[in-house]
């Protein structure tokens, strides 16, 4: 696959190629869960195909006090009861405490979908929790998903263009959604004039770096190093 033809926009084939490279690189890693990644797969609901990266939800393990300082309206959000948030991995006295290997451990799914309108990848995030403790609400977003360092960027005209709850475009159920209206602009800025030499895989890695950090998604360096060989 050559360079991205219409940077910062991707074609279906370029997006597919980048996804395939990511899946192949992930599968070839000796360490099966770099950066808490549990799986990388494509999901197909014709005619739409999307990439799903699943991680153990590390942000749930250590809700930062900073997160409590600010919610979307600038007010102090009420943190769930200790047993609700910290108790994901348990409280010592709690006989029903969960261990990290418990089947009830929440996972976080990052669905990357090529927007048929904007022709840039779009990020949809949701927490899969067998005990339904983290519904797709703004309160969960600010308490358990969003990295506090990025809260200001998610407001108004920030670089991320806003994170909110909306329906998953394929599965039609509420998830967290990073709005793509500024993605093209951000990708141009990140490319720094090197867009002519950029392949779809580089694009995807750069895009995850720019759009994913706020919600806890990074490309583990093992993956980048391995692909770069």
């Amino acid at each position: 696959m050559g360079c991205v033809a219409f940077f910062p926009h991707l074609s279906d084939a370029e997006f597919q190629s980048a996804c395939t490279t990511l899946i192949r690189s992930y599968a070839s890693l000796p360490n099966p869960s770099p950066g808490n990644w549990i799986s990388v797969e494509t999901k197909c609901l014709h005619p739409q195909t999307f990439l799903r990266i699943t991680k153990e939800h590390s942000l749930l393990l250590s809700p930062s006090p900073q997160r409590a300082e600010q919610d979307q309206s600038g007010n102090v959000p009420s943190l769930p009861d200790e047993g609700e948030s910290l108790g994901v991995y348990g409280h010592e006295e709690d006989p029903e405490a969960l261990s990290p290997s418990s089947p009830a451990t929440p996972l976080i799914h990052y669905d990357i979908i090529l927007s048929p309108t904007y022709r840039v990848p779009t990020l949809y995030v949701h927490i899969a929790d067998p005990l339904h403790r983290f519904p797709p609400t703004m309160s969960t977003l600010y308490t358990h998903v969003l990295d506090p360092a990025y809260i200001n960027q998610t407001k108004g005209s920030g670089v991320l263009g806003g994170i909110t709850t909306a329906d998953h475009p394929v599965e039609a159920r509420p998830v967290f959604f990073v709005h793509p209206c500024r993605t093209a602009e951000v990708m141009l800025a990140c490319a720094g004039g090197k867009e002519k030499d950029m392949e779809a895989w580089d694009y995807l890695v750069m895009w995850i770096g720019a759009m994913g950090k706020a919600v806890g998604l990074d490309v583990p360096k093992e993956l980048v190093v391995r692909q770069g060989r």
Partner: protein
Amino acid sequence: MSNRDTATWLRERVWHASIPLEIRLHKADSSSYDSDAYLVHFPRLSYLAFLLPELHTFFYNDLIYPDVSWADAWLEYDGVPLKWHYPLGLLHDLYSGAAPVSAHDTSEEKETPSWQLTVHFSKYPEDQLVRLDTDGKHLRDLFTNNVKEADYLRNGTGRTMMFLGKQESQDLWEGVRKHDFNLFHPIYTQLMNPKGVALRHVPVRLYLPHAADPQAEEEITPGSVRVVQELVPLNTSSRQPQTVGSALNSIMGGLFPNKRLALVAEPVLHGATLPLDASVEDLMRTSAYCDGWLHIAFALL
């Protein structure tokens, strides 16, 4: 009537179309044995969320916990929670079970029977419905994102929406919220006819019943739909004007193997079967929802 007059007449007809609703309080939230139903003719183009404050007031004396916020309320039909960001007409086309009116239907216009909905004030289905806020900001954001996306599809830049003044954006939303044609229409007309820009694509979303996937990890919830969205250019690859049939054939050839004849399913918009030879551009100009989209449901044959 000229084409222009017909388009205006249709646009107004779609704007004024309404569905009679009969809304009852769910028994789990009701302190009385048999509370009255709330009856209203509600516009097809509008959003049910706008009814919630009024429903809260109407059922206040019947509620077990009357001090509950109206933003905790949700509406349901036959076990299906009704999505806030789907306009009423789409919800009715998807779930009411009413047979769509066809162009071949020669009988006189029939009155739509009341759609019987249930309002709940507890057990909000957070996994199925986006949560609303009492300021209405979230609903407005969902609407605005759709308007922006439709604008981007139509002209390839999204600039018309981006360059609307604060007052114009406010008028557009207030026009929707109050269902006020005079507020809404001037701004909507600007969006649909940007100066110096050629129309590129028609904003179309298709809503299919969610077939159970045997490999799916999660259960399919009642009323779950799969939304399909692809670029719909004004003309086909053979430079013919894009019709409903050619667009459906290109996006879902399995369901629409023939561009001129519906064999498996029929597209439904505003309670009517869409003729497959209708131009998508004409449809957009006369029959789009307030967010600029053609939201199309399907009836199986």
